[in-house]
């Protein structure tokens, strides 16, 4: 039985924690919310410099050749700091999507670009049937997508489109030829936009059913990485609340000595432990590319979302009046939690996926 991070991975986590705390203190997320900015470019540059964008890519593609588990660890540390950077779009979705596509010079080119820290966005549906209003013809894209994550920050877009005859394609284009209309988000430290193509030149990376298989796999892989990011945020909010409960006094003793607060924290801790276990399982499924990946991805996403949603809300509550001020970071977690809860589709979409996997997947390895 070897179901846990290796000691090297634990070491990496410690290093990345130190790095992220210094590279992206939570004041960075707050600053993006308070400004018109869509991301913090300085933080992203540091992340690129640190090599997080090339962590799990093979050396042949400009990567460090570490595993996907290391990428999960990096996602959690970004979540802890609520880093205002486009990792979900660029790393969890776009980079993973590129890796699913058939080998080609173009794919190699874009993976190198991704490794180097260029920002990618993905304009694609998040569920079956894979619908799109975007058409691809003669190397040009037309149509629009209502909500593309971090499109305004992107250097390149990966686009799921249909050819005239309905054949799906995945194509890449430069952002500069795309019309971008930013949309205000519930968490303004993140960004998304409505985008329109008008005869936008593109290069086709894949064509046919491979596109849809790649999309489905990418969504599951992105869900695993997002789950780690959510758990990072959850852990940070938990620590914040737990520390406050030890210090804050009411009626002559620390509020954490009252069972109402103590047992609340234990319940949250329990939920957190379960979610961590599912995330670890998702990391294992990613790493081994096991058939359990869809099940593990849905489980990790649902359990981490439940844990963070509860935690973000109770973190405000445990902080009392202070928790409701702009000054404290509680509201940053509250907003981010709500953003995560929709960004790859809501709980009902993932419950449907998990239920489907459980009922139609005959072989279960355990309880």
């Amino acid at each position, binding site marked *: 039985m070897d179901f846990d991070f290796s000691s090297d991975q634990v070491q990496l986590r410690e290093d990345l924690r130190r790095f992220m705390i210094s590279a992206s203190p939570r004041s960075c997320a707050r600053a993006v919310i308070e400004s018109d900015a869509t991301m913090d470019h300085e933080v992203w540059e540091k992340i690129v410099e640190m090599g997080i964008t090339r962590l799990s890519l093979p050396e042949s593609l400009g990567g460090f050749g570490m595993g996907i588990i290391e990428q999960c660890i990096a996602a959690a540390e970004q979540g802890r700091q609520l880093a205002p950077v486009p990792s979900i779009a660029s790393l969890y979705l776009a980079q993973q999507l590129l890796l699913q596509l058939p080998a080609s010079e173009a794919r190699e080119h874009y993976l190198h670009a991704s490794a180097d820290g260029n920002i990618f966005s993905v304009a694609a549906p*998040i569920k079956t049937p894979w619908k799109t209003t975007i058409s691809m013809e003669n190397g040009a894209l037309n149509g629009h997508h*209502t*909500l593309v994550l971090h499109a305004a920050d992107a250097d390149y877009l990966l686009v799921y489109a249909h050819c005239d005859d309905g054949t799906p394609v995945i194509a890449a284009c430069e952002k500069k030829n795309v019309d971008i209309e930013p*949309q*205000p*988000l*519930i*968490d*303004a430290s*993140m960004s*998304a936009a409505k985008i329109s193509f008008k005869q936008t030149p593109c290069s086709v990376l894949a064509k046919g059913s491979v596109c849809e298989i790649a999309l489905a796999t990418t969504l599951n892989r992105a869900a695993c990485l997002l789950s780690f990011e959510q758990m990072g945020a959850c852990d940070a909010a938990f620590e914040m609340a737990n520390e406050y409960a030890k210090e804050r*006094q*009411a*009626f*002559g*003793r620390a509020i954490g000595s*009252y069972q*109402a*607060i103590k047992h609340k924290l234990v319940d949250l801790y329990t939920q957190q432990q379960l979610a961590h276990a599912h995330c670890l399982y998702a990391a294992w499924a990613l790493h081994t590319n096991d058939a359990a990946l869809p099940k593990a991805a849905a489980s990790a996403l649902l359990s981490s979302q439940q844990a963070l*949603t509860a935690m973000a*809300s109770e973190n*405000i*509550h445990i902080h*009392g*009046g*202070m*928790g*409701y*001020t*702009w*000054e404290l970071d*509680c*509201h940053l977690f*509250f907003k981010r939690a*709500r*953003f995560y*809860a*929709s*960004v*790859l*589709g*809501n*709980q*009902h*979409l993932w*419950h449907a996926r998990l239920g489907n996997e459980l009922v139609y997947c005959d072989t279960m390895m355990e309880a």
Partner: protein
Amino acid sequence: MDFNDSPEEALFRQTCHEWLASQATLKENNVALSFATLADKVAASRRWQNMKASAGYGAITWPKQYGGMGGSPLQNIIFRQEEAKFLVPPSQFNVSLGMVIPSLMAHANEDIKARHIAPALYGDELWCQLLSEPQAGSDLGMIRTKAVRCDDGRDGWIINGQKVWTSLAQFAEFGMVLTRTNPDVHSFAGMTAFFIDMKSPGVDIKPIVQANGHQEFNEVFLSDVYVPDSQRVGEIDSGWLVTMTALNSERMSIGGLVPDNLIEHVINQLKSLGEEMHDPALLTRLNQLYLKAHGLWLMQCQGMTALSKGQMPSAGLGTAKIIACEVLSEYAQLMFDLRGHEGILSPRAIDEHWSVIEDLWYGAAGMRIAGGTDEIVKNGIGERVLGLPPEPRTDKGKTFRELTERTLA
């Protein structure tokens, strides 16, 4: 059993409605007035309060001698129900007329009452309540703001300290302030209440930016604020009595906790989903929300029935605030989820309706804290309604000085 007014209630409702109709227009689609700034909203509320007071509707339950209507709590609820149907400014006088002035009525001398009650009732003077402090939230016994007798011959006091979560302090003319005057007795026994002119030298008001970006509450710093002894309310070291009167005067909270039409909004949003509206998982969430929202409404109807019969509403209504917080939070979460992937969009940016939902989402988190946290409310119900024994108090019999020294140690 019915949900109808008694003939007297119906008559009163009709009278209110007719007067309101003569002053304002009915809301359409439940859309309320909106204001560019909080200052505009307060100014409009002052004008509307003045109109109500002039017509005798300024304070339904106050005795007539103070300009009230001498009406029942149920009449107050009926007036508010009717008022809610019209396009009038939302009242900014809940603390002023619902809490502070009633405590003045009970504890202040005749001079103070003669000078202050009428201007407050007519909206000319707004009052705030300087109560909570950074170290005294749920536990008001920990108030540290100090008042000491002047030693320069003036017959007054010098106040120093910091208050927090003071609603509308930036607009108020007067503030009722609870201070520590004797640290060497039990913490609730050594406090004294004063009212101060909010424009007094040494009063510094800083709005608090809330999690939702609003700025209705304030920090108020009091630095060597002089207050004449004539502005003391109640006896020296008996300030807790004055505060208790204010807290207990919060009008019967029947209704007003949860907006109408919540369930209708969910159903409309559901219907926009097409086939997916039949999803039993979504319907179950709708149902659970309905069971709480409609159940709360029914509990409030029971409470109003008691009032209508001249009885006190059941103590069970004390759970209303807790239920309401759950309703608001679950409502907002469900509405966001019903937007699917577009749940990441800022509700505020969509339209006025979604902006209200976003406010309720934050509001539910705030409501769990304000006016008694969930935990304090549950202790109260457990002890006073269910008769369960209180927790042992480690601060029992300790003086304020002993408690604060221990805390700092």
